[in-house]
């Protein structure tokens, strides 16, 4: 048996429907909403602001600090206990690394730029959705950046490579699955996040990266359009 038709009828290189919005959290310096399929991410940026404790201050560079959190009721099944578990901490770390290449931290010495990612509803691809929202929120906060980051998860379901795995594909039972979240710096097409769960051939990895680049360039456009929309001057 091979995976000939996607569970939700999408093409193999098609992402789920995406909705993006900037400036959704008024108290934050910058914020964004990013929805892909049923996965929803909110990101808020606070800063640059003073970093505590003081010994963390670095006169040369600011610090980019990310937090990732799934709301306790966000997934199917039992309630997720609140608070950062090992998974959340690791995702926060790789999110930081994914975004750092575009953030000019030399512009905010002795300070911290805090990025908070929250997920009220999840259906796989949460770290990628979080990164997409965070990149928009950083731009919305007016943080000095030299580009944007988009991210998407590529999957191998049985013998097929697919863009933007959903939960039903991630838990596909008639064959094996590999999950490869990838973040792409849109301007340079460099890869700033790459992880993989499952087994994959070297060839398939190459293909997966190419698929991610294509999907991310579409996502990049959606991110930019949403940011522009916030600052659109309405006639009349």
């Amino acid at each position, binding site marked *: 048996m091979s995976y000939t038709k996607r569970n939700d009828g999408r093409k193999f290189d098609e992402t789920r429907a995406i909705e993006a919005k900037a400036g959704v*959290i008024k*108290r*934050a310096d910058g914020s964004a909403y990013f929805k892909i399929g049923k996965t*929803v991410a909110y990101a808020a940026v606070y800063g640059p602001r003073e970093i505590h404790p003081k010994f963390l201050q670095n006169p040369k560079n600011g610090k980019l600090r990310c*937090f990732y*959190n799934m*709301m*306790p*009721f966000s997934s199917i099944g039992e*309630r997720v206990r609140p608070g950062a578990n090992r998974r959340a901490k690791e995702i926060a770390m790789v999110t930081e690394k994914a975004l750092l290449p575009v953030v000019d931290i030399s512009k905010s010495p002795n300070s911290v730029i805090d990025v908070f990612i929250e997920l009220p509803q999840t259906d796989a691809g949460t770290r990628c959705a979080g990164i997409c929202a965070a990149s928009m929120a950083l731009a919305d906060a007016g943080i000095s950046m030299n580009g944007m980051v988009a991210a998407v998860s590529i999957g191998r379901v049985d013998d097929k490579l697919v863009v933007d795995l959903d939960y039903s594909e991630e838990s596909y039972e008639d064959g094996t699955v590999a999950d490869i979240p990838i973040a792409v710096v849109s301007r340079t097409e460099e890869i700033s996040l790459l992880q993989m769960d499952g087994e994959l051939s070297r060839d398939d990895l190459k293909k997966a990266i190419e698929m991610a680049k294509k999907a991310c360039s579409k996502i990049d456009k959606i991110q930019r359009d949403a940011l522009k929309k916030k600052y659109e001057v309405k006639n009349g």
Partner: protein
Amino acid sequence: MDKEQTNHILNFLEKGIRFDGRKLDEYRQIKVEKGFSENAEGSARVTIGDTIVFAGVKLSVGEPYPDTPNEGTMMINAELMPLSNPDFEPGPPAIQAIELARVVDRGIRESGTIDTKKLCIKKEEKVWSILIDICTVNDDGNLFDASALAVLAALQDTKMPSYNGKIVDYKKKTKDTLPLNLKKIPTSCTVSKIGNHFIVDPVHEEEEKVEARLTVEVEEDGTLCALQKGGDKPLTAEDIDNMVGIGIEKSKELRKFL
């Protein structure tokens, strides 16, 4: 907080108006959307002005407490999420979050709006437990009333998952709702005192000037079911009577959103 802003807010209150143009007892625009998060058994998103609060309900089967062997259990937790306010920090719930969760909890528990006896599956062994989480998304003041409204709306939105006596199948939601006594549903109105003025629904700039607040939770017939005084300054008996009066009056408006 700078003095100019305090004076600004006080000067307006003297004229019987808020600095954002509202009347003293006027709420901002309220919106309640049920079922915004599909994976929860029940959920609601409440916005009051720019304040945004999410509440979600998860159900599981567990053991009853020994002193109530034939009743389901309920737990409310609040996360003052650092994305919602520059002063909220990541980490275990701070005292403000604990207070918020406990005040909302008290209104629901004491009103008896949930018929917990109907949540018993097998006496002394198995009962449904209701796990409710409040997550603040944007704190522009009045998290108490927004949270209470969100939790009640999420409880109303809740559909029981299917249960075969052994495991809960979360993917199959039944049509059954929680056993709620609608007449007993509490609404929460927090009345704040600034100078000699009583206001409802403060925005965060006003909240910083609040000297005392009283959260008044009321059932449909006006019976009080929970109270919580907060703030650093004391209140007179007359103050309290006035505030409870405002709370009961405004509750009628809030009830329409449930």
